[in-house]
């Protein structure tokens, strides 16, 4: 069985190597950053040099609103700069760009999947008597995960007020998880590097920041602005300054952690795949053997990414829950 698997993998990697030999030199940097960066079109593949892409709508606020498809960009007086950002062709300035990019479309698709999954699960609970039936289908699949996050992470970390924050934290967890998982899928509805994009993680971290600081209790704010330290540390507000920086670094670390982990995972997989194409010029023996290694390594990295997808969603949720819980700590609890 194991031998069969190896043979299958080798056979699978040979046509890849053969395909790679047809093409020209591979610009590795462009190859990797083209895959992980956001773009105005959804590149699917290239067959014999012919690019197959899905054009995406562009919405630009410049001198008024311009809406056009990305393949009609030139006709509308816009072009891409060297970073793939859209600029006004005449002035060279960057307009306010509200385009539905690859990441935005990916976000929409993944959000739709997520909302459907959770609402279908909720519908099961509405339609069935929970006291007489055990969950089936989707509910049976999602309930253990939801309750694991709810009971083990949220309840323990947030404390007595967990019911108020549970919907937010569960939404964050499943939002990150589904986007991570869809990011691993290598073709169309997936493959967008969404959670490895700093704008996305920044918004998520910002929501957590708001959740922590908007609902913090009196004791939490006293600890920030007037902590229990000797007076000279408060008179020139050293401690308050540090505390305020602390409130910002917490969500900042969330942002960077998720972003960096997912980005690194994508880059690693792309590197492993890129080896096949890089070695295309080195002759069939090196290329073939390295292709086998690259495919095996790619399988390993994909499994690792599957694990990381879950772990990062879990960590983000757990830390958010902890920060929220810290903002609700009662002074008596600290003694």
């Amino acid at each position, binding site marked *: 069985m194991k031998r069969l698997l190896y043979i299958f993998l080798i056979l699978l990697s040979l046509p890849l190597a053969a395909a790679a030999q047809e093409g020209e030199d591979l610009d590795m940097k462009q190859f990797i950053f083209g895959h992980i960066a*956001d773009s105005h079109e959804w590149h699917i593949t290239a067959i014999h040099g012919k690019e197959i892409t899905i054009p995406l709508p562009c919405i630009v606020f410049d001198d008024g609103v311009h809406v056009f498809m990305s393949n009609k960009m030139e006709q509308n007086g816009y072009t891409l700069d060297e970073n793939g950002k859209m600029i006004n062709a005449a002035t060279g300035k960057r307009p*306010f760009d509200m385009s*539905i990019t690859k990441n*935005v479309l990916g976000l929409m698709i993944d959000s739709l999947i997520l909302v459907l999954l959770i609402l279908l699960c909720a519908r099961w609970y509405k339609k069935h008597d929970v006291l007489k039936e055990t969950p089936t289908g989707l509910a049976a699949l999602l309930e253990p995960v939801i*309750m694991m996050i709810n009971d083990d992470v949220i309840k323990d970390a947030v404390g007595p007020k967990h019911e108020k924050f*549970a919907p937010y934290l569960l939404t964050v967890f499943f939002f990150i998880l589904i986007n991570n998982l869809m990011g691993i899928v290598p073709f169309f509805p997936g493959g967008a590097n969404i959670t490895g994009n700093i704008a996305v993680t920044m918004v998520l971290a910002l929501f957590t920041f708001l959740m922590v600081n908007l609902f913090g209790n009196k004791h939490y704010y006293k600890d920030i602005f007037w902590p229990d330290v000797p007076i000279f540390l408060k008179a020139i507000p050293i401690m308050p300054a540090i505390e305020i920086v602390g409130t910002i670094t917490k969500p900042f670390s969330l942002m960077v952690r998720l972003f960096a982990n997912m980005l690194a995972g994508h880059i690693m997989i792309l590197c492993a795949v890129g080896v096949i194409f890089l070695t295309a010029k080195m002759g069939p023996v090196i290329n073939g053997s390295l292709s086998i290694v690259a495919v095996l390594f790619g399988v390993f990295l994909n499994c690792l990414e599957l694990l990381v997808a879950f772990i990062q969603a879990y960590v983000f949720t757990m830390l958010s829950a902890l920060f929220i819980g810290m903002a609700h700590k009662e002074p008596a609890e600290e003694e």
Partner: protein
Amino acid sequence: MNLITPDSGLVVWMTIIFAIVFFILAKFGFPVITSMVKKRNDKIHDSLAAARLAEEKLATLAQQQQELLEKARVEQAALLKDAAAARDNLIAQAKQQAKEEADKIIQNARLEIAAEREDALRDVRRQVAEISLDVAEKVIRKTLQDTGEQAQLVDRLVEEATRTRPES
């Protein structure tokens, strides 16, 4: 660097999309699921508590039953003993009564027999007296010429009479 500068358009879209997803899921998704699961967990908890209570009750009931059974057995034994005693008593009483009755009957019979015999004796004695008077009459009538012999006879008769009936 391109990678670490957040794209303003994407930030706006992400905020909108996440806010919508959060709104929908927080209103119609997760609270339904978690509350239902909580309901079920509560029910399981209650059922377990109720089961434990019932078990305890059952145990005490069994204990009570055992005690009741034991008591009934003791009572039964006592009752049986009483009944046996009463029966024996009754039989003894009946025997006593029967004996007394029998004694009484025997006594009566004896008295009656005695009275009958007395009657019979009296009858016999009267007849004997009559017969003896008859005999005497006849004897007197026949042989009253010889005085010596007569006197002798009278003496003898009187003596015999007195000997046969010493009490009268």
